[in-house]
């Protein structure tokens, strides 16, 4: 390699460390100096491009993607969004029914399907996670009555509460606050399980607990310590007849 070739290579990539280039530089003082200068320029270039990234960018991207996936369009009006959401729900529902139909005799498959249902339910409704509504006792009472359950005493402040559909049964979607962020509580009457099911995803940690009316899912952000919240919810959310 001669000096001209070496300098051409350095301008293309100053960090180039091919044997021929390094060998030339080790034996040529002017080219070695040229490399040092270009590496200094490269360091300044790197710091110039290395701008701060807005906090929470990844979470916002995921949230936006989920919202748009649900609506099925990049830019859609509220009506179009709702139509797409309904269509998506119908397709998902049919898929889930077919899946359950094929796997109804397998407890393992059922546990897996319920875990997937819980995660999908939460990720489909991420927009409610950071709600700041203070749910009244009356509203909570109405929701719980509608699904034949009741909240016995203070279950803590809820930022969101709504009746929802979980597989074949009506359930309740509640959101409370944990130490690491919002914690979702899904009350799932009719969803009986044999034993506790652990839930883990890249974002969430939680569990589904067996109850007298069916099951109860408690899911928080990664690292949230679930047992105290689970204990409180399990003690206080009971069948309406008790």
């Amino acid at each position, binding site marked *: 390699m001669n000096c001209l070739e070496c300098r051409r290579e350095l301008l293309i990539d100053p960090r180039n460390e091919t044997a021929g280039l390094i060998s030339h530089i080790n034996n040529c003082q002017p080219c070695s100096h040229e490399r040092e200068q270009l590496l200094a320029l490269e360091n300044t*270039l790197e710091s110039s491009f290395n701008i701060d990234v807005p906090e929470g960018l990844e979470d916002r991207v995921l949230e936006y993607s989920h919202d748009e996936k649900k609506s099925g369009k990049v830019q859609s009006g509220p009506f179009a969004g709702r139509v797409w959401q309904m269509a998506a729900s119908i397709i998902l529902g049919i898929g889930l029914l077919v899946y359950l139909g094929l796997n109804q005799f397998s407890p393992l498959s059922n546990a897996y399907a319920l875990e997937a249902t819980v995660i999908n339910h939460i990720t489909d409704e991420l927009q409610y996670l950071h709600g700041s509504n203070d749910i009244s006792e009356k509203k909570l009472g109405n929701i719980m009555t509608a699904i034949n359950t009741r909240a016995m005493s203070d279950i803590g402040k809820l930022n969101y509460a709504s009746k929802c559909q979980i597989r074949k049964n009506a359930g309740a979607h509640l959101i409370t606050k944990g130490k690491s962020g919002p914690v979702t509580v899904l009350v799932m009457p009719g969803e009986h399980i044999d034993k506790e099911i652990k839930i883990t995803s890249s974002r969430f940690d939680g569990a589904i607990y067996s109850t007298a009316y069916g099951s109860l899912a408690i899911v928080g952000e990664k690292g949230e310590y679930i047992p105290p919240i689970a204990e409180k919810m399990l003690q206080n959310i009971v069948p309406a007849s008790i």
Partner: protein
Amino acid sequence: MDMKAKHKHFEMLVRSFSSELYRFGYGLCHNSAQAEDLVQETYLRAWKSFDSLREANSARAWLYTILRRENARIYDRQRPEARAPEALPDVAVRGNDTSVEALVLRKQLNELKMEYREPLMLQVIAGFSTEEIGDIMNISANAVMTRLSRARRMLRESLQLEHMQHSTGTLG
């Protein structure tokens, strides 16, 4: 790939590459809000075509390709070259490189034509090879090498000129 695996793979891509895509996007449009929009639109497009992604290894280059297209589709009419570099919003630079050289370099980078700045960003920010940059920009590897070489030469000359003017001004 079942839906759960698809979601997990997608989330992994978001967590892995959002930051560098944002930096590349910012380098294209020079506006933090637009850069964030670009990243979001890129991932949304990626999700829509996720089934066409055959090899996990090619995902990164694929995302850059999408982001370039999105930038062209959404913001091409507002190319940053049309704006005065002095008017560009200031952005905090990690590493606190506030040396005169770094400030001058940032100004020169903004003045660099997109055809030179873009391969430079793809190499410095993302570490792509000349072949990969060629694939992303749909030009030959030789053309990439020519542009990288010219970009560095122009930047260095601008810096030297600025340095000379600064020295003359100081002496005068």
